[in-house]
């Protein structure tokens, strides 16, 4: 086979990929994302979050432009200069487009229509070189990054893995700044933190390089060690594995107890929020991931949990003060402490789940999704309504909700560390419940229903009851979250329970890995922890106004590229990639063993 020439590319493809990249960059600029995220420095002074986003585009474009689909039976095309050229061309096209945009930005003034239009955007896109220099620099940077993106194809697997680890490590250190800083400060290593992070935020250049080198060392030194450990774990004796699991559990518990002690208020607050969403995601995971019920009104149960707790534990709750029917009937009820109220709240939410679930559960697919969405909104509007406002406070909500009295102290929003502990306890309970249910008779029935509902029914499964159990279990887990939320925030407003919350939890479950407990937890930690919840800031607080844009983009990306999520459930992966799974099984030599099967296979 002769070597391919560097010009063996599809210029039209490269250029169109490049132009799309250019449009993406301009879009990011015009919505204000580029400049907005420029405030957050990742590596001082060379890389901000804004630039990370901008520069990732031509890199990705180069990669895509140089990508060639290898069809089955086709020989994988040779990699080489050709990929770099294809990538560079895409980068150049994108850069040129940005260059044109710079000229436009300089000559026309549209700042009235578009607030992001202006000098700051121009400075950023031109790397402070003005228009003339900017055009040249944009084209240059685009070309170089595009070429780099194309060059990824040329790399062998091993260096690719190493580079990936190095980049992820450096970025993680930059993103986790708040946590690392807190921990180092608390264990008396303040000077190390000072050395790592610059005053204006972000890793300094030298430590960034050091982190990179250390990561490089680890990546090379521990090559294949992860797989090795996994095989060893997989081939262990049952008793030995149990032992290992026990140690792992102890380690996790110790970490969950000790880590928050080393962290400041802000980070603990963030962890507590993540925990609340982990709880919600675990609950929704049972409903959507296990039983296959697409519930888009899940926030309703979170709301009922929060309001239930507020109503029962608040001395000045509206219904106690105002002269209402509820007051007349329940006025004798004493103000309950959180722990006593919790079982009532759980039962109440479970009951609401039953009430909503009963009519809804017989529907299928899209209809069910729409109706649950409706119920979610109805619950919120009830809380908001004038009719119930003497009881539940209307838009004013319920305020001055007391915290959780646990004897030694009262857990409330001013002590995020304790809130985190409280949440952690309930997360542990939720994980236990999820796991026990999944592996039980009902869990198997959920799986069967998800796979083939009519057949499941023909095999003796009462699908209505079984699905209702999933729905109500999900509601109960959400009520835990709501109950803690009320005590933590100290107030509940209808506006805390928008449809958006349901959607974000759903995205968390999908991105994390539907049907898989560790996956769902990872999803919540990564998304809520870094991007932030609907109203809660994450580690990258600068995302705030672009959060939804990024959530949406992420969802689209995941659905296209990795529909099974970050940490997929084994069965779900097979479902989504069934052909590949069949092929793998066949290649692994999992061929029929007896002669008769060969005949019919």
């Amino acid at each position, binding site marked *: 086979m002769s070597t391919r020439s560097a010009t063996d590319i599809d210029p039209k493809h490269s250029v169109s990929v490049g132009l799309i990249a250019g449009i993406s960059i301009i879009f990011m600029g015009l919505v204000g994302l580029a400049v907005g995220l420029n405030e957050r420095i990742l590596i001082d002074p060379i890389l901000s979050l804004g630039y990370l986003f901008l520069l990732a585009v031509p890199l990705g474009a180069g990669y895509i432009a140089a990508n060639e689909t290898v069809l089955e039976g086709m020989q994988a095309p040779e990699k080489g200069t050709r990929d770099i050229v294809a990538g560079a061309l895409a980068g150049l096209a994108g850069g040129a487009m940005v260059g044109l945009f710079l000229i436009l930005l300089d000559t026309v003034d549209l700042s009235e229509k578009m607030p992001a239009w202006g000098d700051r955007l121009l400075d950023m896109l031109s790397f402070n070189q003005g228009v003339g220099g900017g055009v040249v620099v944009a084209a240059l940077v685009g070309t170089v990054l595009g070429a780099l993106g194309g060059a990824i194809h040329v790399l062998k697997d091993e260096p690719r893995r190493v580079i990936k680890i190095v980049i992820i490590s450096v970025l993680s250190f930059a993103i986790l700044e708040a946590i690392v800083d807190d921990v180092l400060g608390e264990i008396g290593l303040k000077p190390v933190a000072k050395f790592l992070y610059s005053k204006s935020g972000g890793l300094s250049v030298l430590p960034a390089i050091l982190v990179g080198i250390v990561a490089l060392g680890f990546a090379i030194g521990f090559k294949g060690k992860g797989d090795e450990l996994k095989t060893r774990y997989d081939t262990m004796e049952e008793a030995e594995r149990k032992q290992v699991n026990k140690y792992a559990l102890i380690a996790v518990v110790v970490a969950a107890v000790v880590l928050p002690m080393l962290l400041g208020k802000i980070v603990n607050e963030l962890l507590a929020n993540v925990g609340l969403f982990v709880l919600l995601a675990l609950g929704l995971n049972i409903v959507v991931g296990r039983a296959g019920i697409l519930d888009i009104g899940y926030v309703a149960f979170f709301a009922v949990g929060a309001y239930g707790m507020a109503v029962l534990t608040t001395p000045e709750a509206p219904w106690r003060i105002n002269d209402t029917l509820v007051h007349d009937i329940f006025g004798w009820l004493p103000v309950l402490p959180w722990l006593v109220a919790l079982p009532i709240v759980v039962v109440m939410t479970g009951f609401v789940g039953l009430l909503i679930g009963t009519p809804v559960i017989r529907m299928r697919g899209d209809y069910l999704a729409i109706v649950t969405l409706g119920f979610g909104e109805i619950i919120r509007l009830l809380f908001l309504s004038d009719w119930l406002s003497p009881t539940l406070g209307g838009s004013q909500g319920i305020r001055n909700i007391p915290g959780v009295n646990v004897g030694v102290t009262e857990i409330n929003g001013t002590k995020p560390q304790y809130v985190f502990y409280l949440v952690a306890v309930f997360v542990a309970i939720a994980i236990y419940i999820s796991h026990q*249910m999944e592996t*039980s*008779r*009902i869990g198997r029935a959920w*799986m069967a229903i998800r796979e083939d509902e009519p057949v499941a*029914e023909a095999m003796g499964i009462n699908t209505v009851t079984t699905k209702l159990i999933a729905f109500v279990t999900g509601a109960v887990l959400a009520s835990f979250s709501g109950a803690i939320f009320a005590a933590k925030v100290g107030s509940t407003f209808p506006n805390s329970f928008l449809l958006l919350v349901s959607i974000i939890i759903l995205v968390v479950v999908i991105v994390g890995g539907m049907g898989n407990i560790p996956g769902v937890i990872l999803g919540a930690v990564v998304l809520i922890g870094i991007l932030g919840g609907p109203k809660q800031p994450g580690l990258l607080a600068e995302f705030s106004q672009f959060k939804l844009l990024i959530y949406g983009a992420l969802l689209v990306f995941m659905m296209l590229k990795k529909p099974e999520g970050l940490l997929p459930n084994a069965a779900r992966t*097979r479902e989504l990639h069934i052909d590949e799974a069949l092929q793998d099984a066949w290649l692994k030599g999992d061929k029929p063993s007896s002669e008769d099967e060969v005949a*019919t296979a």
Partner: protein
Amino acid sequence: MSLLDINNVTITFGGLTAIDDLNFHVDEGEIVSVIGPNGAGKTTFFNLITGLSTPDSGEILLDGESLIGLDPNEITARGVGRTFQNVRLFPQMTILENVMVAQHCRTNQKVLGPIFRTKAYKEEEALIRKNAEEVLGFFGTRLTGYRLNQPAFVLSYANRRRLEIARAMATQPRLLMLDEPVAGMNPMETAELTELIGKLRSEWGFTIVIIEHDMRLVRDVSDRVVVLDHGETIAQGSYEHVSTHPDVIEAYLGRSAGDK
């Protein structure tokens, strides 16, 4: 009284009368084969009994009690187990899980059992597991051992058919209905399954209705053969009787134009 009694059952789909005023019965311990050309209404007949379709008129009685209007799961719970002509396993579930889940209507642990790991729950799980291994063991080593934890879709075609039967057995039926159990199997596998069907009655005590196109199997296992055509019984009796019946031959070979 028969185990299953079907009296004057009719069902139409749009203009098509799939089952036309059908009468049918199965006695306890009998093996009855239902044969007939493609589109005769055999599968529809199964669907009516198992509650997947509801007849327009007529009655279906199991042990004297009507099955009409019951949900499919209730009918299964009353003791009717079935397989599907087009093999409908739960493909992503393991072989063991496929059979465990089919015992749903024979067990009752719900939420509190698994959460508090009660004694009753553990005992029930152990029983489910034991029953599952027992029905799978019915097919020798074909569905056991390392196969237990493989997803069902990796099975060969013949093994999928076997697993379908195992799954129906796991529902602990009195009446077991097999829709073309050997379709797609080679002669050796067919012979083997023929023998097993005999054991399903002698060792497991099931009463069996089989839809089958393989005439050798029909001949070897059936006490009685019922021939359907256009939703009507055109003949019934012993295999010898039916196989020489002129109407049956006509139904299979087609009518001459003059008769219409």
